[in-house]
């Protein structure tokens, strides 16, 4: 059919038009307010907020290495990402089986809960210094991220196991499932969406933690280290490059987890 493509584009625009326009307005006004504020603050000599164009210039320079750390921006990002991924992976690997165990057995819960109830409310950053001292500058930040991600995943998995609909277990039993099969074919799949929730929360906490942890020490660089060192040297334009890098990384990881969450929900027939 003639003009099918243009029709479907028009269709998309018709359906999504308002959303697109409003998104554009939101982004443009954000930039304008930023710009206006920086001009205003400078003219009043109140404080220094680098304007978007200045930050953009600093960004271009940072790509091949900012004048302070001489480390290309990508290296900083990779260094942070590296710590983040290790800490995150470690947390998942330990929290998932522990959560399943503590959700499934009340004895494991009696054993594990008191300790985790004491540890959980302590902000990871309060412990960061200790982790650096105990595990060194290489593993300290990884352990800090691990600590921040571990509890949301543990508690969500545990909650998931405890939320399993008893009818599903009854159904599985009457259909002839063994205990092991009930675990593998009912409890485990039931818990996956809860795990995904734990992961999204963990992602948020993880990013928050990694930036501040790198303020303590970050051999080989890191976005947090870039932010702190440029700040102490008054290089606010470069500091904002670091801030924006963190923002973008955060957006990317949360979109990734949201995408994964949706895919899982779809596959699990929960959407």
């Amino acid at each position, binding site marked *: 059919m003639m003009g099918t493509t243009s029709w479907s584009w028009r269709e998309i625009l018709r359906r999504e038009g308002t959303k697109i326009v409003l998104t554009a307005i939101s982004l443009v006004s954000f930039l304008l307010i930023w710009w206006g504020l920086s001009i205003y603050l400078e003219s009043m000599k109140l404080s220094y907020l680098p304007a978007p164009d200045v930050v953009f210039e600093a960004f271009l320079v940072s790509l091949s290495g900012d004048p302070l750390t001489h480390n290309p921006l990508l290296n900083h990002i990779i260094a942070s990402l590296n710590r983040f991924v290790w800490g995150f992976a470690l947390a998942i690997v330990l929290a998932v089986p522990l959560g399943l165990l503590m959700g499934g057995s009340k004895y494991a819960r009696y054993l594990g809960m008191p300790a985790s109830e004491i540890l959980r409310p302590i902000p990871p950053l309060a412990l960061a210094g200790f982790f650096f001292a105990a595990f060194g500058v290489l593993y300290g930040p990884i352990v800090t991220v691990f600590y921040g991600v571990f509890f949301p995943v543990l508690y969500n998995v545990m909650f998931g196991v405890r939320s399993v609909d008893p*009818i*599903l277990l*009854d*159904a599985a039993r*009457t259909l*002839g499932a063994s205990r092991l099969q009930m675990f593998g*074919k009912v409890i485990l*799949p039931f818990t996956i969406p809860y795990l995904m929730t734990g992961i999204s929360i963990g992602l948020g906490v993880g990013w928050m933690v990694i930036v501040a942890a790198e303020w303590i020490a970050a051999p080989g660089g890191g976005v947090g280290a870039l932010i702190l060192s440029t700040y102490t040297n008054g290089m606010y334009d470069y500091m904002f490059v670091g801030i924006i890098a963190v923002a973008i990384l955060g957006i990317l990881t949360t979109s990734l987890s949201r995408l994964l969450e949706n895919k899982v929900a779809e596959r699990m*027939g929960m959407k």
Partner: protein
Amino acid sequence: MSILSFKNVGKVFPKDKEELVAIQNFTLDVEEGEFVCLLGPSGCGKTTLLRMVAGLESISKGAIELNGKGITEPGSDRGMVFQDFGLFPWRNVKRNIEFGLEVRGIPPEKRAETAQKYVELVGLKGFEQSHPNELSGGMKQRVGIARALANDPAVLLMDEPFGALDAQTRNQMQFELLRIWKETRKTVLFVTHSVDEAVFLADRIVVMTGRPGSIKDLWELELPRPRNRASSEFIALRKDILDELEVQKTVV
């Protein structure tokens, strides 16, 4: 011959320091291929009784025997259909029906073949790949019935299976159930608190007393099927049983 025997069955629940007697002296023989409805006021223990047959609930006194063998635990020789369906939301229709075959280690090709047979029996052809959340209540219970039947159980236990459905769907599902029952010749033990439903479905109705539950009366239904709800015999029978239940209510 009798396939399912309740021999002086009792159920006691611990309650605070005392014991709550839920079921007392329940004795009944169910014939092979028979459609038996357990009818009684809520709290009379009819669901507990069904769960005891399923092996989901322990038997405090007496024994329940299936083909002469005492029931001690759940098994695939008894299929159960639940009021709230109990379907696995992450499995599609076909894989829900296959569940029992899967856990019993039936090879995939045989599983698919059997599942397909029951998909068609319950009238869900074309919905094999749908997930439970995409189905209406009536269709969900069709899956529940197919899933229970796929194991080819000796008895089909149904716990108010149409209780969560609207009146129209409910009537339609009763028709469907009778058709399926006729085709499979299964022994059915069906729990309901609806006199109308029991009179429409059963060969025999077991009217239970309030707590502690025991048999108050047995009704043999000679009405030919399909039964006409508007016929005078149907209405008269319904009224008689209803009266029996009403009397009880004022006593309890």
